[in-house]
């Protein structure tokens, strides 16, 4: 179905274009006037009218067909009195039988009837799908062809349509974001219906274990997220302690000292660092850095655990170096050359110029780069999953293992559990907190960067 409908649409595109082109040439010849736009614009006009209504039908069919068929099948299903049904399982069973008749063996007569009902509905749906696509395409082309007169400004109309298409494309991302936010909020509300928001935000006990069987009283869930926030904060601080100085100094070197040749080599190398999958950083942290941290801790008399905030934070710091160095390098580079000349012209040397003129001028942008890096560090998952541990541990000691918001989300969602208990729902509440924090950081950072740009451009 998918393949043939694509072929159908491709044929429609091609023939409508050819048709539109030849039709407008014919019409203008008949009237003896030159058309207001080039023939190609009329062809595009026909094409768009042929294509887009058909695409809308196509996608709505693809989205709703299965659901509608299932609803019809279920509503016609002959339920046996007294038997318990799970609707999801029932549908799956019916579909299995419909798709593969060999499954029919041993199934009840109701199921087999429903399966044949299902298959026939699908067939009807497919036939009507093709006919309606063809009809819609023809209608669209017909409507458009009525407008193919030389005095019609096809180009203006096309440009307006293209603008609509662009607006549509850019709103996809925005609406997706809004959708994600709403799903986060609704699921979080379900969580907060069972766990008080004050417990979540201010209590320090995180034991997200709920009784699996009825009567199992050994574990009572407790959802105080403070240790998780603290762990996230600790890892982030360690990461920034590594990334801020290294990244900033790298940027200063690249922007002010490095020759063009060095710059051309080093900058892409740093950006490769940003392209390493974070899980790779994760096992680097676990296999190489964590044992080193443990050994180092022992050598100075601190008992370090095998996974620690320090190991995860340090590797995460390395991961975000390119963010800071690349953004800061851009910012420093966009400090106008005239300021450097002004400073050198007074007899300042390079260090004085950088310290007293360039860095102050670039400061807002650098702060923006730091904030973006922080929000990246907070949202990072894989490194901390592998290298920081999963124990909620309220501590300021980076040698101990801690857990972060992202890790707890992973832990909550692992395993096959239904989204109906606080343990899994807590993932959404944590995700919401994470989202709000990074959103604010990003907004502030972008605001700062923007204000800085306005000043110099």
């Amino acid at each position, binding site marked *: 179905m998918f393949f043939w409908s694509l072929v159908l649409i491709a044929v429609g595109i091609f023939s409508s274009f050819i048709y539109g082109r030849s039709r407008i040439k014919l019409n203008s010849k008949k009237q003896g006037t030159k058309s207001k736009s080039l023939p190609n614009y009329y062809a595009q006009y026909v094409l768009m009218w042929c294509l887009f209504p058909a695409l809308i039908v196509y996608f709505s069919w693809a989205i709703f067909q299965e659901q509608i068929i299932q609803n019809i099948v279920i509503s016609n299903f002959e339920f046996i009195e007294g038997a318990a049904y799970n609707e999801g399982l029932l549908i799956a069973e019916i579909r299995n039988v419909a798709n593969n008749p060999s499954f029919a063996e041993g199934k009840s007569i109701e199921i087999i009837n429903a399966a044949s009902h299902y298959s026939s509905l699908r067939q009807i749906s497919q036939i009507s799908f093709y006919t309606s696509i063809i009809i819609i395409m023809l209608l669209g082309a017909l409507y458009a062809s009525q407008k193919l007169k030389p005095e019609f400004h096809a180009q203006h109309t096309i440009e307006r349509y293209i603008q609509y298409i662009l607006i549509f494309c850019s709103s996809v991302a925005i609406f997706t974001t809004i959708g994600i936010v709403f799903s986060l909020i609704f699921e979080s509300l379900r969580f907060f219906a069972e766990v008080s928001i004050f417990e979540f935000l201010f209590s320090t006990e995180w034991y997200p274990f709920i009784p699996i069987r009825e009567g199992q009283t050994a574990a009572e869930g407790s959802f105080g997220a403070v240790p998780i926030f603290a762990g996230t904060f600790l890892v982030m601080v360690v990461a920034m302690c590594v990334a801020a100085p290294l990244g900033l100094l790298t940027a200063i070197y690249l922007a002010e000292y490095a*020759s*063009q040749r060095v710059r051309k080599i080093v900058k892409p190398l740093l950006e490769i660092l940003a392209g390493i999958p974070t899980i790779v950083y994760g096992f680097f942290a676990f296999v190489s850095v964590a044992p080193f941290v443990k050994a180092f801790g022992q050598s100075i008399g601190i008992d370090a655990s095998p996974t620690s905030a320090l190991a995860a934070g340090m590797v995460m710091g390395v991961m975000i170096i390119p963010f800071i160095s690349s953004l800061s390098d851009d910012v420093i580079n966009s400090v*106008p050359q*005239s*300021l*450097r*000349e*002004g*400073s*050198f*012209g*007074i*007899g*300042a*040397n390079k260090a*004085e110029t950088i310290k*007293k*003129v360039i860095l*102050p*001028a670039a400061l807002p942008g650098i702060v923006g780069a730091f904030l973006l890096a922080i929000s990246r560090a907070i949202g990072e998952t894989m490194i901390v999953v592998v290298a920081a541990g999963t124990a909620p541990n309220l501590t300021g000691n980076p040698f101990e293992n801690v857990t972060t918001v992202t890790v707890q989300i992973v832990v909550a969602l692992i395993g096959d559990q239904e989204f109906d208990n606080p343990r899994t729902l807590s993932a959404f509440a944590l995700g919401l907190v994470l989202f709000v924090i990074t959103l604010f950081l990003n907004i502030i950072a972008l605001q700062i960067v923007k204000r800085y740009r306005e*000043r110099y451009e």
Partner: protein
Amino acid sequence: MSNSKILANGVDVYYGSKQALFGISMDIKEKEVTALIGPSGCGKSTFLRCINRMNDLIEICKVSGSIKVDNEEIISSSTDVVSLRSKIGMVFQKPNPFPKSIFDNVAYGPTIHGLVESKNDLEEIVHSSLKKAGLFNEVKDRLNEPGTSLSGGQQQRLCIARAIAVNPEIILMDEPCSALDPIATAIIEELIDELRLNYTIVIVTHSMQQAARVSQKTSFFHLGELIETGDTKKIFTNPDNSKTQDYITGRFG
């Protein structure tokens, strides 16, 4: 006859493989205004930037020949560029105040060169520099506001104040009025006339009227060569070279 302050001899400048200046030799006198004129791309700014070694900032730029400031060779790797530049102030085409307060803009030079002992000294230098640049009365109540908040003409005078705060002997001006309106230009020109009593000034300008108004000596550059140099009056009324004649009468450029 006053003494020569800057003495250039056979200065060649290359940008990569492209030669921008051809054997420039020139004698710039003390406490006079020398104007460098010529069509765009003729090398007058390049020459100006040789005098305080500003071309060092351009990686591909190579300077050879000899320039002596106060009889000291400056085109040499052993030249102390920092002290050279503190002796030669520079004012640029576009006003380029630092993103600091008006006070800190002027205080920048004296501070990095350690010219002041106390806060009072610094304040005195800043005030007197602003006065010399004719800006003090306009900004004395808002010295803590950012330098970028001033108008274009005020910013340019702030840059002049910043340059003279380190007590230079020479001031280089690279088309200082090209970004300013006529009124601000007139104020700067008046200022140049006052400054010439204490400083040697070399000014690059596109405006021949400006050269005629503010300078005592004029040098005409064309295609990287120094065509003619002499008293401004003579250059503008009775030049020796026919190219100079053509340029000042507006036949090209």
